[in-house]
């Protein structure tokens, strides 16, 4: 496994998930899986975060918050959608109150399948997102970006 140039910080948000994926995300932080050995830190502040890990199918009330969190994160940033609900709405896709998938609200870079996702799968997803993060960082550098959040047009 390649070394990362940076220690990516991660922000987890539960957007109308059933908790199954959320406790697996938490399990990643605890001794058995321990993502901190990759330098990954779970932060509560979107302005500190590089990776946004979202679970759940997003409902109307959560939509704005997801947008807010995404908007507050500095560039480069990566979005990981974990679990069937976050990818497509899962079992709740037919429900009246569910938008069905994070990519209906913000652009998603990595999809992690499973219901509920296994911690191993989350680690896989985060590792994949790191490559994307580095590519985005290089792209940003080339364009001479400052890492400031993009202004909404």
């Amino acid at each position, binding site marked *: 496994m390649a070394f990362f140039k940076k220690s990516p910080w991660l922000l987890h948000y539960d957007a109308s998930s059933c908790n199954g994926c959320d406790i697996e995300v938490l399990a990643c932080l605890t001794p058995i899986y321990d993502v901190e050995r990759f330098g990954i830190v779970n932060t509560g502040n979107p302005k500190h975060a590089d990776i946004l890990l979202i679970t759940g199918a997003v409902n109307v*009330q959560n939509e704005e918050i997801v947008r807010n969190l995404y908007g507050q994160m500095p560039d480069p940033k990566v979005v990981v959608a974990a679990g069937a609900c976050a990818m497509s709405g899962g079992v709740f896709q037919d429900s009246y109150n569910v938008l069905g998938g994070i990519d209906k609200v913000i652009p998603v870079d990595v999809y992690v399948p499973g219901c509920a996702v296994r911690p191993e799968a989350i680690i896989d997803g985060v590792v994949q997102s790191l490559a994307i993060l580095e590519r985005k960082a290089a792209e940003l550098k080339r364009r001479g970006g400052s890492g400031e959040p993009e202004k909404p047009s």
Partner: protein
Amino acid sequence: MGQRTIIPFGPQHPVLPEPIHLDLVMEDEKVVEAIPSIGFIHRGLEKMAEKKDFQEMAYIAERICGICSFIHSMGYCQAIEALLKLEIPKRAEYLRVIWSEMSRIHSHLLWLGLTADAFGFESLFMHSWRVREKLLDLIEETSGGRVIFGVCKVGGVRRDVDAETLRRALEALAALEAEYREIAGVFSRDASVKRRMTGIGVLPKEDARALGAVGPTLRGSGVAWDARRLQYAVYGELDWAPITEEAGDCQARCLVRIREIFQSFDLIRQAAGKISDGPVAVKVPGNPRGEYFARLEQPRGEVVYYVKGNGTKNLQRFRVRTPTFANLPPLLKILQGCELSDVPVIVLTIDPCISCAER
């Protein structure tokens, strides 16, 4: 009288694994009133019963919540089985009890960890979750899933556990219990834990009853109500009694859960000793007709499933009253008069499960 300020708490907050929003009306450091606003996880799954096949609904019922997943599907299936007057095999009933007790241990261990995290005892958090992972391995070995078991269906269970696996699981559980005993000792005896929980967030017995508290929140206030007393599945054949504590504070609610984990270990052993051979599922005859309230005991308290069928494959109405929904009014009562710095611990001691509450 000091000046009043409103502090918004949540939905995205480091101490909250799930989004809930509370408006805390403060007078200096004291909380005068707490007003919840929920709906962040409302998925409207009760309505889905009108569109989905009643057998398929078991999967959706299981995903009401990922922590108490198994008992949700079990409760839904029991409600439908009562409408169909379906007698399910004894072995399936025993397996359901074993799995639901496993899920109770896993949920309580999860809670112990989160609470330790809320009062800043990081190493205790890590130890609780380390032990919990071993239980999850057992759950995966017996049911095939880590948190979403996916084994319960209308008419029984979807897979059998062979004698060898069951024997190994019991051995592993015994080892687990020894490890858990050490952690439980820290929670019940450590001075810093006591300081954060004793006398904090007191819910008197009368209030607990009047506000409709359920589960450890109710039993921590000295009321011996446990829905397992209704003797659903095979709880009538096992030897156990509801666990209560008198104090009604955070410590009492914590102790109830600590002792319930030991009780669950014992119940699994009893059930595994009494289990008999046989089939694990029966064929489902026809469609449900009539109405019924099924009541079960979740890790968080009593859960009520109301099903109403009209003889078609879709239910007319499916309603779940989850324990957290019933525990919200008591929570608001406990929060009144507490200090702002105690809010996270108090919120956690009712073991809020927001995705349950909002469905």
